[in-house]
């Protein structure tokens, strides 16, 4: 609190000279002379100041002196003295003057007090205003400092957020990889199973052929003495004729299996674009097929698929990112369709863009959530089953490439995911 502002005191003690002005006193004293007094004098008790009329000090006079005290606030602050011949008229003049002076003092005091309180409150309000002004200035400064540091803080937080986001994207990729790995493992396990089984059968066959071979060599060495009947019996016992037929089949089957594994690995390699991290010239029809190939394990056996591809020009696109987008869309479509999955895959080429549409026969997306499906972390899957980032990242990827990814539920049923990408020639 600013104590400077409190120096005003209301109702300070006042002397007579402070309450009356000389001109007032002068005209009062003159009035006394006019009504017959010889001499009139007012004395201020505090300072001893005398006001006289006529001026000069009280001369040795024969006339009688009459005086009366002047009060303020119950205390004598002055004396009024009149001299004159007529005692009676002087006394009444004195009474009149005293009353007048008291009235003057009273109104003067009232005026001064009013002024004082007014000045004081104004000064005080001013001091308070200045004080609050100072406080405001201080808080303004604080806000300015805060604003300045805010930018740095925001930058730090943004960087943190970006790091977290990159981490999320990485997580989503890993989640795709995880799903793929599970699917691929199954895909590879089936041919691997029968290849292993075929190999163990072939191993037994070779054992039997080697036994036959040994007998045949012995027979050769004994020449004419060989026991043909025994040999024929052994050949029948070892089912050599059957081996002759079956081995070829087993080898053919195994080769087919091996080829299938190699094709799966190839698909996976193509899908993941491990060879090309950066943009490469892609045929989006091929990309669609490749993604379907790696998702083969997810397809129910009864699934039907209709493809209506238009030949598309090769485009320079980030292959891995495109694969991931198609993977997410196709996986959603496959999961939506369930056991009776019917997929319609369409690609089309316009003057300015490539359009790909994936239409499933699922139950569609309820109205209340369709506006949320592209939001990060939005998922209808159980906890731990989906990151909720798949479609969000897919749309982000496509938008970064200048394209659009939209979902719609036509009245005919199911969901159509439409992906459009600008043609390169139009992009530049």
């Amino acid at each position, binding site marked *: *609190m600013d104590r400077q502002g409190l120096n005003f005191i209301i*109702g300070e003690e006042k002397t007579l000279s402070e309450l009356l002005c000389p001109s007032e006193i002068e005209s009062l004293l003159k009035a006394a002379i006019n009504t017959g007094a010889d001499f009139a004098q007012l004395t201020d008790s505090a300072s001893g100041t005398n006001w006289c009329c006529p001026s000069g000090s009280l001369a040795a006079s024969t006339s009688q002196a009459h005086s009366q005290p002047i009060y303020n*606030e*119950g205390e004598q602050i002055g004396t009024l003295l009149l001299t004159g011949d007529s005692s009676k008229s002087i006394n009444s003049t004195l009474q009149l003057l005293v009353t007048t002076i008291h009235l003057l003092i*009273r109104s003067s005091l009232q005026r001064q007090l009013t002024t004082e309180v007014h000045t004081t409150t104004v000064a005080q309000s001013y001091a308070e205003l200045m004080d609050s002004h100072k406080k405001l200035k201080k808080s303004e400064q604080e806000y300015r400092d805060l604003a300045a540091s805010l930018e740095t803080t925001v930058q730090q937080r943004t960087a943190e957020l970006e790091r977290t986001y990159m981490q999320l994207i990485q997580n989503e990729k890993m989640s795709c990889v995880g799903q793929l790995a599970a699917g691929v493992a199954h895909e590879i396990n089936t041919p691997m199973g029968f290849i292993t089984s075929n190999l163990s059968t072939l191993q037994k066959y070779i054992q039997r052929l080697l036994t036959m071979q040994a007998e045949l060599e012995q027979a050769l060495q004994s020449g004419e003495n060989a026991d043909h009947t025994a040999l024929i019996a052994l050949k029948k016992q070892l089912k050599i004729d059957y081996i002759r037929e079956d081995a070829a089949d087993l080898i053919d089957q195994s080769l087919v299996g091996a080829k299938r594994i190699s094709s799966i690995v190839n698909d996976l390699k193509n899908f993941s674009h491990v060879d090309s991290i950066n943009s490469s010239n892609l045929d989006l029809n091929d990309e669609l097929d490749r993604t379907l190939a790696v998702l083969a394990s997810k397809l129910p056996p009864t699934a039907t698929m209709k493809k209506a591809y238009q030949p598309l020009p090769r485009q320079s696109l980030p292959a891995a990112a495109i694969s991931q987008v198609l993977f997410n869309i196709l996986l959603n479509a496959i999961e939506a369709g369930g056991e009776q999955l019917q997929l319609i895959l369409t690609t089309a080429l316009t003057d300015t863009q490539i359009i790909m549409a994936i239409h499933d026969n699922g139950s569609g997306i309820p109205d209340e959530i369709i506006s949320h499906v592209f939001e990060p972390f939005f998922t209808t899957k159980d906890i731990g089953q989906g990151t909720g980032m798949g479609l969000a990242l897919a749309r982000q990827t496509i938008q970064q490439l200048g394209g659009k990814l939209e979902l719609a539920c036509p009245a005919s049923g199911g969901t159509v995911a439409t992906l459009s990408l600008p043609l390169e020639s139009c992009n530049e």
Partner: protein
Amino acid sequence: MIEYNEQEQRLVLKLVYYGPALSGKTTNLLTLHEQLSQQGRGELMMLDTTNDRTIYFDLLPFFLVAPSGLKIKVKVYTVPGQVKHDATRKAVLQRADGIVFVADSQCYEAANNMLSFENLEKNLQFVGIDIDQIPLVIQFNKRDLSAITSEEEIRSNWQPTGLQITLASALQGNGVIETFTCLLDSVFSRLDARFALHQSHGLTRQQFIAQLTTQKNT
């Protein structure tokens, strides 16, 4: 706070009637003015009022001289009770030597009493007066009205504060001089402790109070 001029042998005391709007602060002064002898006191000065509401303050001055010749001026002020005149209240409260808090006894005024008392505490702090040191009397006014807070309730609410409590109906002229006497008693204790009024100036507590509360001959 007390204004003391040793050279002039002069002491000026400032007593303030504080309280919520329309609780009867001015009526207290009017009653004192009416009931006390004109001897040794000045006229009641009422600064501008509008519709009977004090907007500046009222002032009733007293003057007495101790046997030693020490002149003692006692100025009794009221403050405006309305919330908007807080600046005036602060100005009047400066350097106060004693306070009568005039509370309105009517039940529905209880909240206003509290608000005004909080305002007093705040303003005393503002002008640098310790509320625990200054003589302070609480007067519950308007006892003549119905629907008032009971005396038991008042005592149970305020006794714990250690403040002196008086009851009055200022319009009827009851309890006003008692309240003033109660305040003067506390004020004398403080004055005597500091200026040895009794020992050095020959002014006893009884004389001090009696001179300031001499009633008119009826």
